[in-house]
């Protein structure tokens, strides 16, 4: 009688493993950079090529780096949320215009609103590689000491906001 249950037990455990496996999103590869210092860069600004921007300049504040491009469809989905975040001064958002044409990036921001304090221009995508970017949009929350504390892969969703805002508050020491 006991033996008859063995195949059932094996079957159920297989189903459980399969269920867990299928519910994971293979696109979301956890970043090894979370908890590590943000990779350095110094890039020209999107709106003014003669000016540069670097994470170095932002030490001492909590900020969000949003990697985006005008050719990126998903960026358009998350964009209203970024604009709303900027309007409410939740966190200073800096853009990283990734593998884009300068004029396309600027036009896109003119059309859809500009949530960025400043945007960096990464034509070749080198800084993107340094930050482990493999699909835009991606967002990194950096703390006052320049350590990456959180990464959102893909569009930031309204459901991510609670966690993100709690983390921002915590990092600001409020």
């Amino acid at each position, binding site marked *: 009688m006991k033996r008859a249950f063995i195949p059932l037990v094996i079957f159920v455990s297989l189903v459980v493993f399969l269920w867990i496996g299928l519910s994971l999103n293979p696109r979301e*590869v*956890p970043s*090894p*950079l979370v908890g590590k210092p943000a990779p350095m860069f110094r890039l020209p600004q999107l709106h003014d090529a003669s000016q540069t921007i670097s994470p170095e300049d932002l030490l001492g504040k909590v900020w969000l780096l949003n990697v985006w491009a005008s050719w990126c469809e998903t960026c358009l989905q998350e964009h209203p949320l970024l604009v709303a975040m900027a309007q409410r001064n939740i966190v200073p958002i800096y853009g990283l215009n990734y593998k884009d044409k300068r004029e396309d990036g600027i036009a896109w921001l003119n059309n859809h609103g500009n949530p960025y304090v400043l945007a960096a221009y990464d034509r070749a995508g080198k800084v993107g*590689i340094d930050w*482990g970017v493999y*699909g835009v949009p991606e967002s990194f929350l950096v703390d006052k000491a320049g350590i990456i504390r959180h990464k959102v892969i893909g569009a930031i969703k309204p459901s991510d906001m609670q966690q993100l805002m709690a983390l921002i508050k915590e990092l600001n020491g409020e």
Partner: protein
Amino acid sequence: MSKNLFLVLLLSLPLPLAHAGEAKPTAEDPVLEKHVMALSHKLRCLVCQNQTIADSNAELAIDLRNQVREKLKQGESDEAILSYMSSRYGDFILFQPMVKSTTWLLWFGPLLLVLLGICVLIFMLRQRRKLMQKVQNISDEDHARAASLLSEKI
């Protein structure tokens, strides 16, 4: 007619030039290119996850190959490049996972399963032998009885 011919000539003129321009990186240094490809075969393309960046033509794969090429040109070792990539993209980017405490189950799990299988097999063979001994211990009378029962017509 002559106008058409001129057009054809005009159109065909830049073609070989453009072609030569595209193939240049490989022609430049075949040894380096071979090295780039060898290393690229060890790196996963995170866009099309079952392909290496050597096989994939996704834009990210092309960028990563360029990055590998550049780093090799700067004289970085294979190990340094692989560890750079995994420090940026995580161990998942390595097609051959590193052997460390978190990957022990991955590396040695199959071996464990084989050992388990062998144990089960030995156990079952022993059970079987015991059963066979029981069968061999049947007396002659019982054999005769069984034979007569089997030959009975229903």
